[in-house]
């Protein structure tokens, strides 16, 4: 299970990389393993749109499940990964790299305090593996 130490995480298995005031969002290795082969990605957030923390920004579908992806922090969407919908399987192979979903200009940095660090996320995953 790959859980990069420098990222922030949510209970719903999203990750966010924070660089300056820009956050990059995706779903974690745990999530892609649970979903198995991902066949479809729809990014519903649009560039320029402002979303709140917890708003749905994308939907990810595999053969056996569908999941909504929620914003770990709110702000203005500055980039959307246009290449991902054509190659949804990238989420399975490179969830933290080329399979990022959106980039957001973080509105309220205090919202980052609500996120989990890598250690807390590792615990969260372990608790669910039962």
């Amino acid at each position, binding site marked *: 299970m790959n859980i990069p130490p420098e990222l922030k995480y949510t209970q719903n298995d999203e990750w966010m990389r924070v660089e300056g005031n820009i956050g990059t969002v995706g779903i974690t290795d745990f999530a892609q393993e649970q979903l198995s082969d991902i066949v479809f990605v729809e990014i519903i957030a649009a560039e320029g749109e402002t979303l709140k923390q917890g708003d749905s920004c994308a939907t990810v579908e595999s*053969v056996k499940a*569908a999941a909504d992806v929620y914003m770990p922090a709110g702000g203005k969407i500055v980039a959307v990964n246009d290449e991902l919908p054509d190659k949804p399987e990238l989420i399975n192979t490179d969830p933290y790299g080329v399979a990022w979903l959106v980039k957001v200009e973080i509105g309220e940095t205090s919202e980052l305090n609500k996120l989990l660090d890598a250690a807390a996320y590792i615990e969260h995953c372990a608790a669910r593996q039962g």
Partner: protein
Amino acid sequence: MMYTPHTDADREAMLRTIGVKNIADLFQDVPAAHRFPELALPSAMTEMEILAELQALAWANDTARELICFLGAGAYNHYIPAAVDAILRRGEFYTAYTPYQPEISQGTLQAIFEYQSLIAGLTGMEVCNASHYDGATAVAEAVNMSHHHFRGKRPKVVLSPAVHPQYRDTVRTYTQDSDVVLVGDQGEVDPTANPQALLPLLDDTTSLVVVQYPDFFGRVFDYTDLAKAVHQAGGLLCVAVNPLALGLLKPPGEFGADIVTGEGQPLGIPLSYGGPYLGLFATRQEYVRRMAGRLVGETVDNRGQRAYVLTLTAREQHIRRERATSNICTNQGLMVLAATVYLSLLGKHGLRQVAELCYHKAHYAALRIASLRGYSLWSNEPFFNEFALRCPRPIDEVNDFLLDQGILGGYALGRDYPDFEKVMLLAVTEMNSKEDIDALVDVLREVSHA
């Protein structure tokens, strides 16, 4: 008892294995106060006895085959080729379940794939699902789908008043307590008007416009201009069809429909006092993930054989649960098969032939009746096999007269539309001979004189 095979010896052996004395011991969790009630039902009948009882009940009815039927309004008396029921009665089809295990369900899956293809072709659309319950709920699902598509930001749905009243009622039931706003059939638009009358109701809060083809009054309109206007306003167009009419008429896909729904009963499904019927639902490829209902897709198995499987199941209720577009689980399975076999038997030539028979016979009837004193056609628009007829007396009286002469008259439009007390909706199919139509004309003439 009836269909349980257990002998006393079986039962005793099984109880011993389980480790209880009696079957009643297995129900200990059931609250004692209410356990094992005496049901006040008649005692069991044998197969011979129930068949006699059913026959008596059946004989107490006068059917559309014994009477001369001119009643339509959403269900039609068409001929069903013998081969359709022969296939439907195969136990491998009708006693199978939903094809969740594709390796042993290719019969059902391939048949549904064929159905999807035939209906897509018939309606001029790109994808078709494995059916909804009926024509009415299919429209309700279209409303649901377009509402989801616009993420609730476009709450208005325009319903033409010329859509079947029961379909509109169903949509109202489904959308009660939601933020969907239904307009168009509450007096804002004159039912006698043509589709252009809907245009003033379009705006940027409109998600869907629903029209019928042929409409409830039997009229056939080209909705190309309406489709353009709807798209310009940013909304979607849903056309509810009689699929048999599409054997002759231009399909809605060709004039810009985004969703085509329909009632598939005319395609090899008996009248059966209202059900089970078949809800058709087809749309464009770009909306396929928003569409509710089952979908069969093509793939291969691990032996390299082409095969079929339920696909995009992640949209459905058993996976998305409260996030599914719809709660639909069961489809109309066997009715899908009936329509598929019917369309396959009739094929390109047969469907055109039966559509033309309906068309020509209806036009013969209209011509002859319109020449009677006291009767006139309510509309001059083109029609397929159904038309609205102005009569000299209230329709219930006319129909009583007709029934005395062994004729089932048309639908009394006054039930749903004010000011239509003396207007009847008359349907003619290939099951009506020229003699039947002439008989109708003779009785109608008498009604006018009486």
